[in-house]
């Protein structure tokens, strides 16, 4: 019984307990405790975070002559840490008072806990996969488990769930084809065989394999043009569920891509393959896909009027950063990409939980119906503020570190156009998160929100913990970079030289401790100036006048509708409905074809087909 077995056993136990006790009131806390136990079990494997060697599971199966095995290495451990961490935060958030209200509104808090537990278990199975077959099994399980989480809210979420599962199945089938091809080429599903023989694959095979795998895994990451499902599916889940999904779910695609494409096949082969009639290599093309994945969804996020959808759209764009960083394939870039997985998960979980807290009090996530909540929910505001600073990649939060690494790597490798693209993406992020915080917390408080209070501690605690994680890992990125470097080692790619405060290498230096101290020093000076001046007089926000008129609660002096109208006027047509044409044209083709195929069965004389079939098959043999 290895430590990995213990972890998986705990995880399975969580699934079983939360599944059996789905109707119990206390089940939320029970499962939260069990998630904590999983977290502890994961910490027992902490050696993996600092370069320990891989841990095998003692369980292995042989089905239809195919062996299946499971093991954990530093990369798996890094992703598992994020998975269980975000699950723990979401579970605690959902366990307390939130569950009661959810239950009152016809929700099933027990089912939510069960769904999260199931997701965690399947994700751990995927992360622990020791061969291509167990990878695929884990992959499919993750896909279907997240469907449960997505559709459990009912209503419009089921439509998004359906869309998701069709995309996911398509992706899975691409992966299956890829795995089948590998089986054909190597004669087995084992990682070792693939790694050993990958060098002998022909270029055509490499192209087919990488396209299949990147399309397949890319569906889950929301790579363009497979991104249409993601935002709605994540956003329409129940609040803590969104937080969990948004934080980690789509990163599973990244994990699988890292294992198969980077670790086993090797990026070098991708760089070597030129796309005919262009100046690009296969790798460059993928980087441009990543770049567009950053830009389009981010600017789509700008247009959203639902806070949850806005955040979920960002999830897609941030995935593009991770992919971009990893594809650069220098120590800076891949470290940036991996680090961004962690940073983004902490940001996104904090943001979604904060938005859930707002929804908990106000019953809406519509950005046009909120505003001015900062006076009523100050702590939630702080969490959201920390989160959006991190998401936008502004110092001193952790998002800055990872984005800096990615920018730096692009500059070092001499890819200015891609650098500009990522910066444009960041610009969009900043604009849209500003819209988020402005429309919810700043501006005019609505009359109906006059009496709301801060959310209870059971919800605040995980949010605050996450916010402090966002800050601490921004302040001392070395904490996480240790794990990232171990993961790099596990992947077999060049590792980053780092310190507690950041990076110290020939290609770039960054010391976040210094930057943060300077920044806070600046803030301190500013605060000193502000508070040493005249005392401000506190008035009610309606105790005011404009244009000679006193304001009433009916007057909207806080313009939140049609945000960024001017910008939208200029760029709106560029991305509106990006790639929706692809989806809808596929749907119309399928429906056209299926209509005509069914006609055949409706034709009034089936014997004609018998005649035709007989004639043609005879012709095939005789002619």
């Amino acid at each position, binding site marked *: 019984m290895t430590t990995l077995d213990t972890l998986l056993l705990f995880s399975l136990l969580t699934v079983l307990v939360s599944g059996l006790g789905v109707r119990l009131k206390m089940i939320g806390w029970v499962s939260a405790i069990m998630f904590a136990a999983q977290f502890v079990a994961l910490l027992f494997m902490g050696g993996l975070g600092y370069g320990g060697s891989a841990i095998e599971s003692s369980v292995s199966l042989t089905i239809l002559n195919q062996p299946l095995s499971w093991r954990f290495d530093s990369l798996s451990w890094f992703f598992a840490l994020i998975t269980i961490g975000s699950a723990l935060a979401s579970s605690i958030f959902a366990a307390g008072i939130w569950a009661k209200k959810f239950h009152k509104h016809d929700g099933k808090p027990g089912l939510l806990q069960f769904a999260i537990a199931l997701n965690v278990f399947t994700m751990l199975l995927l992360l622990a996969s020791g061969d291509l077959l167990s990878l695929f099994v884990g992959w499919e399980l993750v896909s279907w488990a997240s469907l449960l989480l997505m559709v459990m809210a009912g209503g419009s979420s089921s439509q998004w769930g359906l869309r998701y599962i069709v995309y996911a199945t398509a992706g899975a089938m691409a992966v299956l084809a890829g795995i089948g091809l590998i089986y054909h080429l190597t004669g087995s599903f084992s990682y070792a065989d693939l790694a050993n023989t990958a060098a002998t694959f022909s270029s055509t095979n490499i192209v087919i394999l990488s396209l299949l795998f990147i399309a397949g895994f890319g569906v889950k990451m929301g790579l363009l043009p497979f991104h249409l499902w993601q935002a709605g599916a994540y956003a329409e889940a129940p609040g803590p569920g969104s937080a969990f999904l948004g934080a980690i779910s789509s990163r599973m695609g990244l994990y699988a891509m890292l294992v198969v494409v980077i670790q086993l096949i090797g990026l070098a082969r991708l760089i070597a393959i030129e796309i005919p009639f262009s100046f690009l290599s296969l790798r460059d093309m993928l980087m441009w896909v990543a770049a567009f994945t950053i830009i389009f969804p981010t600017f789509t996020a700008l247009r959203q*009027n639902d806070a949850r959808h806005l955040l979920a759209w960002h999830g897609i764009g941030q995935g593009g950063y991770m992919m971009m960083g990893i594809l650069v394939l220098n120590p800076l870039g891949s470290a940036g990409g991996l680090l961004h997985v962690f940073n983004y998960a902490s940001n996104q979980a904090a943001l979604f939980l904060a938005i859930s807290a707002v929804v908990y009090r106000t019953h809406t996530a519509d950005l*046009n*119906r909120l505003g001015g909540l900062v006076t009523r929910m100050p702590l939630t505001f702080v969490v959201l503020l920390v989160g959006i600073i991190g998401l936008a990649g502004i110092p001193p939060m952790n998002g800055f570190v990872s984005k800096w690494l990615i920018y730096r790597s692009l500059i070092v490798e001499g890819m200015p156009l891609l650098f500009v693209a990522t910066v444009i993406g960041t610009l969009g992020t900043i604009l849209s998160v500003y819209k988020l915080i402005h429309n919810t917390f700043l501006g005019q408080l609505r009359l109906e929100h006059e009496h709301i209070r801060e959310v209870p501690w059971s919800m605040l605690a995980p949010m605050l913990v996450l916010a402090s994680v966002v800050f601490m890992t921004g302040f001392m990125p070395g904490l996480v970079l240790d794990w990232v470097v171990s993961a790099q080692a596990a992947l077999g790619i060049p590792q980053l030289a780092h310190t507690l405060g950041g990076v110290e290498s020939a290609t770039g230096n960054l010391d976040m401790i210094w930057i943060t101290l300077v920044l806070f020093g600046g803030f301190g000076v500013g605060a000193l100036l502000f508070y040493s001046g005249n005392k401000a007089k506190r008035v009610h926000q309606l105790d005011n006048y404009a244009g000679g008129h006193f304001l009433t609660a009916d007057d909207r002096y806080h313009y939140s*509708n049609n945000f960024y109208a001017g910008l939208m006027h200029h760029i709106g047509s560029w991305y509106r409905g990006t790639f929706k044409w692809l989806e809808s044209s596929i749907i119309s083709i399928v429906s056209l074809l299926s209509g005509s195929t069914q006609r055949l069965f*409706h034709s*009034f*004389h089936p*014997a*004609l087909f*018998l*005649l035709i079939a007989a004639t043609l098959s005879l012709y095939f043999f005789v002619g």
Partner: protein
Amino acid sequence: MTTNLIHWLLYGGAMGLIVIGIVGVVTLTNIFRIILALVIAEAGANLLLVIAGYRFDAIAPILTGQALSAMPTTQIMVDPVPQAMVLTSIVIGVGVQALALALVLKVYKNYQTLDLREIHHRMLADIDHSSGVISLLSEEQPKGERPLPEPETKNVLNSGGEK
């Protein structure tokens, strides 16, 4: 050569019957005639089978006269196996035809027509009806009233203003 030609004609006749039967089944619309066409096709197949055992200058595989005592017989006989098979397949054909006729009776009783097209139409409508699906075919024959889409009562300006 003559033997071959005669053989070929025989086989060709059987094949021809089969094809005629199939064409009949496919082109006819009266279901009773379709059964008859099926009978023709079956006859063709049976003929083919029995020809497969045919020999020139051979007698029926029945021992008579002196042949009874002089076993095994010296005279050339035709192959008895196809004959036995044909016996079986004819009886099988009878069974199927009887069942088909019974079905024709019932179909006629229910739909009052022998036209396959009409029957098919009515059958599809029945299936659609029993499964509660609005028939594709009903588009071609509207039945008087058709429910109009509900008029938009919401004020578009109000709802649009909020979004």
